[in-house]
């Protein structure tokens, strides 16, 4: 049970001692082997060995708060690109989908417009597709655009208003709606 640095292919123990956890696998000979560079972590209670990878994951994981841009709006699904995650790096854009569930007896919340920036939580991942949700508190639209003219919507008295078209939209917004500095600092982004 040495805590030496592990490399891909390095034997950690045998299957009789520990079961493979994250970043570990069983080789043909019944040995538990590391699949990444990192330090092995032995859980003596659960009898599981995992490897703490030296590289943080570039992909979002379940539970991450992410910033995404709406790409396509359909009846039940809003497709978006995940562009940043809170407290971490998302180097590449990933596909996400916000599934809008129809609420019985209530008028469903207005959906999104293409280009809207939304703060959501990763609910699940299935084969590289992320299911996102904005149902929890503190989640929602951070920057929205007018359906008609494409201008930024201004938050006024509980709704979003377009200054040019004089049309009000209802969206679930976050407390720092429209505050660019807050958005950028929360997700570690920089204006390019």
């Amino acid at each position, binding site marked *: 049970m040495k805590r030496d640095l592990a490399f*891909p292919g390095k034997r950690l123990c045998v299957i009789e001692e520990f079961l493979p956890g994250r970043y570990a696998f069983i*080789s043909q000979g019944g040995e538990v082997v590391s*699949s*990444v*560079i990192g330090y092995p972590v032995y859980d003596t209670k659960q009898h599981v060995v995992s490897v703490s990878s030296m*590289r943080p994951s*570039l992909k979002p994981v379940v539970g991450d708060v992410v910033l995404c841009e709406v790409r396509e709006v359909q009846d039940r699904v809003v497709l978006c690109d995940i562009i940043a995650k809170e407290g971490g790096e998302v180097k*590449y854009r990933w596909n996400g989908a916000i599934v809008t569930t129809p609420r019985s007896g209530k008028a469903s919340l207005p959906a999104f417009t293409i280009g809207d920036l939304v703060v959501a939580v990763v609910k699940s991942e299935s084969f590289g597709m992320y299911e996102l949700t904005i149902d929890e508190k503190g989640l929602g639209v951070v920057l929205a655009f007018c359906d008609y003219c494409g201008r930024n919507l201004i938050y006024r008295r509980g709704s979003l208003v377009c200054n040019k078209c004089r049309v009000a939209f209802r969206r679930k917004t976050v407390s720092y709606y429209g505050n660019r500095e807050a958005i950028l600092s929360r997700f570690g982004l920089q204006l390019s």
Partner: protein
Amino acid sequence: MRGAEMNELRLFREDGLRIDGRRVDELRPVKMEVGVLDKSDGSAYIEMGKTKIFAAVFGPKEAHPRHLSQPHRAILNCRYHMATFSVEERKHPGMTRREIELSKVIKESLESLVFLNEYPRSAIDVYIEVVQADAGTRTAGLTAASLALADAGIQMNDLCCGVAVGKVGGRIVLDPSEEEDKHGEADMPIAIAPRQNSIVLLQLNGRMTREEMRLGIEMARKGIEVLYSVQIAALTKRVRSSHQGGSGRY
């Protein structure tokens, strides 16, 4: 036979050593570095004698164009390329038939190492750039690529080391140089996943007897043991330098 004698005269010294002073089972001086390029997700540099190669890895990321993505696994793209200034006479900057073939061969070798099913709908891009060629570029490129993949945090079942074995003047030699490769009778690049002890690449140009091939593989295994220890040292150095405030994302 006369040709073989002439080759031996030219490529072996009187004391039995090779023209560059190496024993038949000796590698050229090897140097490896990991994390040499900032913009890529993982990178490595290798020098084997006069051969100098950079490898860079990008990903895992979404596969583009999207129709190429696989729902249950990642796709691995590999590009082996020689710089125009890597050889004595300027090389055309485009991809030659040889480079396309080597890209495919290296890609297939790497696919046997990477857990592609861990990255569904994703793509992993591997770029191998030969900046100076002096024989053994495909095996050195593969060695560097496996280091770069490990540096990028891609899950793999093993690292991979490659070395060529040649037949020069009727004798089997390890890691032939450009001169030996040019005047030799056969060339056999081999890549092995050292911990699994499995061969991931084996090609043969020229002719060898069964016994020569067995001897060559045995010789390559010994050379790969040395290369593997250099790989581990390079990765360890990379992790330690990152802990001490070096560049990189560790």
